[in-house]
């Protein structure tokens, strides 16, 4: 197999995406920790770290555009770079959602619904695992792993629903005064579930990259 200049460029692109994914995983972890521990300082640090992710997003996007212009990639190279552009945007969006969670953490009063917080922590673990697996599926071109990510989304949805149900029926419906301290948790649960949706979108892009079949909005093709 002939070694190409493009292969080196694709390796650099993969490394940048891996860096970005690691930063996003940290952001998800730290935002949930800030929420759980009501740690405003950690929330602020995490919000500041988002700038680095934004910068990396621009670098990756420019690199992808350069590769299109300079190498006119086709076949698997084309699908790889097109997928990288999508993943880049999804990762950046995940980081923004982590910033949202940090902002909820800063709004959260001292006493909060304990069970919901435990479930949010579980949801955060699921989100981190989904992100990691989706990126691993991209790097290893592993379709099975990508499918696993998509299947896990149901679990994330169920957990988000449980959290919302608990907060609305067990807390807000019974005592209107708890609304200010439950709303941030409710929104955080929604943000985490959206992060899982973005991980699913990455997994769908990875399947496109491997199979050249668009499964987005067509789960029956999985």
């Amino acid at each position, binding site marked *: *197999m*002939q070694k*190409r200049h*493009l292969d080196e460029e694709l390796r650099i692109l993969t490394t940048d995406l891996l860096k970005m994914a690691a930063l996003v995983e940290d952001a998800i972890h730290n935002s949930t920790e800030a929420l759980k521990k009501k740690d405003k300082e950690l929330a602020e640090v995490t919000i500041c770290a988002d700038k680095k992710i934004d910068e990396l997003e621009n670098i990756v996007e420019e690199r992808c555009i350069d590769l299109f212009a300079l190498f*006119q*990639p*086709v*076949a*698997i*190279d*084309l*699908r790889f770079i097109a997928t990288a552009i999508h993943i880049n945007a999804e990762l950046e969006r995940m980081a923004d959602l982590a910033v949202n969670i940090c902002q909820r953490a800063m709004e959260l009063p001292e006493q909060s619904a304990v069970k919901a917080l435990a479930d949010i922590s579980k949801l955060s673990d699921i989100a981190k695992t989904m992100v990691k697996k989706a990126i691993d599926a991209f790097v290893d071109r592993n379709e099975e792993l990508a499918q696993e990510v998509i299947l896990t989304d149901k679990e994330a949805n169920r957990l988000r629903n449980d959290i919302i149900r608990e907060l609305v029926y067990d807390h807000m419906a019974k005592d209107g005064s708890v609304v200010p301290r439950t709303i941030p948790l409710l929104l955080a649960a929604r943000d985490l579930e959206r992060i899982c949706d973005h991980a699913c979108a990455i997994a769908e892009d990875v399947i496109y990259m491997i199979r*050249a079949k668009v499964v987005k909005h067509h789960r029956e093709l999985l």
Partner: protein
Amino acid sequence: MQGTAMKNEKFLNATSIFRSQATTQTSSKSVRGESASPVKKNIKIKVESFNFYYGNTWALKNIQIAIKENNVVGIIGPSGCGKSTFLRCINRMNDIIKNTRAEGFIYIDGKNIYEKDQDVVTLRRDVGMVFQKSNPFPKSVFENVAYGLRINGVKDQRVIAQKVEKSLKDAAIWDEVKDRLSDSPFSLSGGQQQRLCIARALAIEPRILLLDEPASALDPIATSKVEELIHQLKKEYTIIIVTHNMQQAARVSDFSAFFMMGELIEYDATSKIFTNPSNKITEDYVTGRFG
């Protein structure tokens, strides 16, 4: 790429193509491309079990392909793979090369052009050809285009003038040469000379146009004019273009055929060949992993 693995890959791909077409075939033979497009168009050229030899060299090996009317087909592949040989078989230009032999069938509009009763002059009138290097005759611009008409017995000057103008317009060069019709074609730029040759081929109203690397010696602007011309011409003609420039094949053709070592490895919609080729060998070639 190892020989055995390559053969297995090719065999699997070929059998799957034939299997997928089995239900739509009326003929006993399977020809790639016959059912590849959802748009119903007539088959203009059908090649079946076609082999070509230069002496003992087996240059084309069991080629099967069906080309639809008003399609542009790009032929790609490494040097020496048989692209130009295949192109020249479609108007029997290889007949003039000594010690060559063709076996099999090439049908144009249902008639086998390798039948003994095929008039080769008529065939070459129906199947026009433009070569890599523009080759205008040492006559005026006007006479270059009129030449084919005159040798085909057209004598009416008015008809000749009309057809010359139409051909030059169809070849998108009329505006550039309308005031220079008496000039020598060698005063034109390379791109203009190539479009003049295309106009000359169009003047005798062929049904099929064969282009052998028509833009390889042209600058990007002239290349883009020739490509735009191909896009316009496909409304009236079936076009087969041999090109080394894969981006050009991707831009201008509806279908692409990848040849290697005399074999047709893959024939499919161009978008499929360049985004998700079925055959690993095609993918390695289009992505530049071998060459």
